[in-house]
């Protein structure tokens, strides 16, 4: 089944506690090259048949209105896979 992938990240100027904790853990284990870590969501919407333009438009709509919270998150990418 083809999928629409929606990627959501915490807004760049807000704290991402999860990313911070993971960055610290990486640094403790010697991975200093990864200076900063941010963690967001990867959401797969499975669509049966073809992904139409209308599906994509609708995915965009729900990505902005429901799958992400515009006050603290950004939708950084929407694309079709498979």
């Amino acid at each position, binding site marked *: 089944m083809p999928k629409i992938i929606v990627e959501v990240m915490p807004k760049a100027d807000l704290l991402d506690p999860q990313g911070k*904790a993971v960055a610290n*853990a990486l640094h403790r284990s010697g991975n200093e090259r990864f200076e900063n870590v941010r963690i967001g969501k990867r959401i797969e919407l499975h669509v049966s048949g073809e992904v139409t333009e209308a599906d994509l438009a609708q995915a965009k709509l729900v990505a902005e209105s429901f799958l992400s919270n515009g006050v603290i998150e950004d939708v950084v990418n929407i694309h079709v896979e498979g």
Partner: protein
Amino acid sequence: MKIGVVTFPGTLDDRDAARAARLAGAEVVSLWHADTNLHKVDAVVLPGGFSYGDYLRCGAIAAQAPVMESIIKAANGGLPVLGICNGFQVLVESHLLPGGLIRNEHQNFICRDQKLRVENVDTAWTNEFELGQEITIPLKNGEGGYIATQETLKQLEGDGLIAFRYLELNPNGSMNDIAGLRNARGNVVGLMPHPEHAVEPGFGPDTATAMRSGVDGLKFFTSVMKALVNA
């Protein structure tokens, strides 16, 4: 007998676990996550909480702590280890127990007095129970849904490695109603509910006879004391 209680950053129930161990007659030693030294303890409790905020996956960052290296080694050598809630998650992330724990099916954190059935009494932490005994201890978690592949589940069931099952209500969508597991040797036990919150009359779950009087959790700690004496 010395029981070590580990504190990671974000551990919450370490003082409760220490109190429970003391009530069972143990001497309690605090173990610090950054220290590989286990201070010659006879058993270890990995208590509940939100180690490292439960960020990434609960228990995942804690499983990387220096103290865990020593605990994994000692557990493989037979040291009794009990993982409660977040401690269970750490055991799973350390691969001392199989499977994984994910977000509760209903998506919410849940705190309730939970009925369990004791499925296995041949472990260091459950030998004071009777097989099939029904006990009530508090449960509180947001990510307590136990999952594993069908293969793993089959093996767990076949080898009798399920230590506790949820009764009456499965609070988090765990597969096969699994509340807790043991390893093959029986020295490592992990469970989502909190025995250390049912050890002192007045502060435990309600029972039919009196409010907050449930002390079913104390047997975990008296079990390990007995196992250690007999060892």
